């Protein structure tokens, strides 16, 4: 149901920068539709990023994050060809995992 994440990872001088653009409505649960009905809350609650199976980042998100979240972070280490895997879970129990190789 959720679209693919766009992940970019590049390593330079011993530091890898990862940029992730996620596809998610991130509904706060506070909005109403045209008929006055509350649009149910639907947002990513947690995200985990791994470098070659080792967890390098864990994020807790909530309704304050806007639609199609963009996340950028750096970590020490990583080399060209290594795998970066990003997974998220949302409040409805849906999840998504995508991975790329570091450039």
């Amino acid at each position: 149901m959720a679209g693919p994440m766009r992940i970019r990872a590049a390593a330079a001088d011993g530091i890898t920068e990862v940029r992730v653009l996620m596809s998610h409505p991130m509904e706060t649960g506070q909005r109403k539709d045209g008929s006055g009905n509350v649009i149910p809350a639907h947002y990513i609650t947690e995200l985990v990023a791994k470098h070659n199976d080792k967890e390098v980042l864990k994020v807790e998100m909530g309704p304050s994050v806007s639609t199609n979240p963009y996340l950028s972070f750096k970590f020490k280490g990583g080399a060209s060809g290594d795998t970066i895997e990003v997974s998220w879970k949302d409040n409805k129990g849906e999840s998504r995992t995508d991975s790329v190789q570091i450039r």
Partner: protein
Amino acid sequence: MKKGIATAALTAAIAGGVTGALADDTAAALEQYRQMIQDSNPAELNEMAGEELWVTPRGPKNATLEQCDLGLGPGVVEGAYAQMPRYFEDTGRVQDLESRLMTCMETLQGIPSEEIINGKFRQGERGKVADLVAYVVGQSRGAKIQVDLDHPKVKEMFELGKQAFWYRSGPMDFACATCHATDGERIRMQDLPNLTKHEGAAAAWGSWPAYRVSNSQFWTMQHRLNDCYRQQRTAEPIYGSDITIALSVYMAGMANGGTMNAPAAKR
């Protein structure tokens, strides 16, 4: 101390008012903001969706768009948008990307153009066209804008587009030129490109389609043109009609030599 800050703010405001343009530091801050939003552009999600649509069998004929000819041969997407709008032999018309995609969707997939023309922006098949636009335009990133203005049909559309650009209509007697024919114009916080000059046209044509942060929506050029007419409170053009193609030919023609850098992100 407070007096000093108030004076400085007042001076900046007056300076802004006197020159008719935003104070330099405000303009610089806006430009920095514009650079920042390019990095996290949600239009990339539309590009990815469009790329998938291109190779997915759809419609009554259950076919993909991989045989669609955008001017450089069937299935050739890379660099194709930079040479559009162009004349197409098979339809005998000058077409922009959206009208050409409608042609391909109808001939190859059996999806009727009428459905898209009678539809709404960002919904149904027209919504799918937007994703395809994002994909195709993305494949011309960095390419030089080269619309063939020597072709008689294209030249004809260029002249029609220029006429349409200056044509005043509606209750406020606006034309495109009312906002887009002078340097340094601004509407509230939005700088308006001068589309009658190469620099303005290249900046504009090279950065559409775009994701608009202000309303969290991805808009194609057809959408942008339609909304311009709506903002003028005059008749909105039919989707993919000749007038919209002509205006695109005019803008792209004026932009010739510039560089494509779309889909972009805008305020």
